């Protein structure tokens, strides 16, 4: 005789609806160690989606303070955080854990370059939520050397992209760079911070494109951790919010790329 059903029991389970997606492995998601690099617009959305998707162990690295202009696209920030000069990573960690007390989000207030090399090996997936190419290259290379998937997201106004790097199978972030990237290597494209000159023009950024890109990043992470790596993006996903078009464009491995050599 099977257990009796109890009306409404399924609504007492936070993840009841996720369990109904057969391929999602909630146990694997709960065990996985996830590194999120950047606590700006993408980082806010990514952490929100990771927590709600069932990830339990998140490390979040960011060196910046909250400023008022972040608030049009960073759901965890408040006006008092600007007044208090609060650190982004700490605020996102604190408020992200309020979404689910069972989650641990470790805030690391530093540049990603300061994360010790041995630290990378403990992670199962890295999500790049950065605003400059130099830091992306750092995250890309360290993830690659550790053999960990790196899921990079980028936005520019209504345009966005996601590249998933699965070492050694797919092209990496560096494979897709050209001279125009190297000319703006250290330019900060949307956020603010200690290294940004006040006269540097800021790039357009808004929440809807941010949300789309972050959602795709997290979805790829969930697929990979759940054992569905074969269904992951293998090239570069481009999104245009003005036209509603999105497609995955094929990128080949650069034979001159030092990571693949």
């Amino acid at each position, binding site marked *: 005789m099977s257990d009796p059903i109890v009306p409404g029991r399924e609504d007492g389970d936070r993840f009841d609806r996720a369990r109904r997606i057969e391929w999602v492995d909630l146990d694997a998601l709960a065990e996985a160690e996830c590194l999120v690099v*950047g606590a*700006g*617009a*993408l*980082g806010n959305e990514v952490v929100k989606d990771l927590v709600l998707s069932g990830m339990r162990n998140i490390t979040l690295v960011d060196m910046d303070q909250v400023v008022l202009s972040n608030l049009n696209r960073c759901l965890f920030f408040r006006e008092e955080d600007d007044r208090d000069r609060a650190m982004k990573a700490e605020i996102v960690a604190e408020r992200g854990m309020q979404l689910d007390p069972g989650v641990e989000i470790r805030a690391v207030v530093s540049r990603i370059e300061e994360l010790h090399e041995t630290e990378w090996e403990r992670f199962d997936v890295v999500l*790049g*939520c*950065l*605003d*400059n*190419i130099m830091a*992306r290259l750092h995250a890309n290379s360290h993830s690659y050397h550790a053999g960990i998937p790196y899921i990079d*997201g*980028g*936005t*520019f106004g209504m*345009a*966005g*992209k996601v590249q998933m790097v699965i070492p050694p199978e797919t092209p990496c972030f560096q*494979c*897709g*760079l*050209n*001279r*125009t*990237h190297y*000319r*703006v290597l250290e*330019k900060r*494209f*949307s*956020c603010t911070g200690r290294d940004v000159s006040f006269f540097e023009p800021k*790039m357009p*950024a808004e929440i809807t494109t941010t949300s789309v*890109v972050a959602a795709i990043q997290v979805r790829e992470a969930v697929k990979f951790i759940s054992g569905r790596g074969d269904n992951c993006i293998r*090239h*570069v996903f*481009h999104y*245009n919010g003005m036209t509603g078009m999105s*497609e*995955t*464009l*094929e*990128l*080949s491995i*650069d034979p*001159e790329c030092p990571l693949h050599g």
Partner: protein
Amino acid sequence: MPLRIRVRNAETGATVDMELEGENTVEEIIEGAAGYWEKDAGAYVLRCGKRLLRGQQTVAEVKIMDNDNLELIPDPEGG
């Protein structure tokens, strides 16, 4: 023998024709088109159909053909 291709500006829809030799690189196409449209300093990539072309590749290597249509896309690097 030079070949003639058309590059489309993904942001505005404008197009420009370019005359290329086999040894021209993808980077030269990107910089030529970006310069023509006086685009802001930033990262750009070039697509041909479903392919993203790598900067160091030559026209011959990526098999760009006469009358091909390429598209210059800003590479979103904000976050």
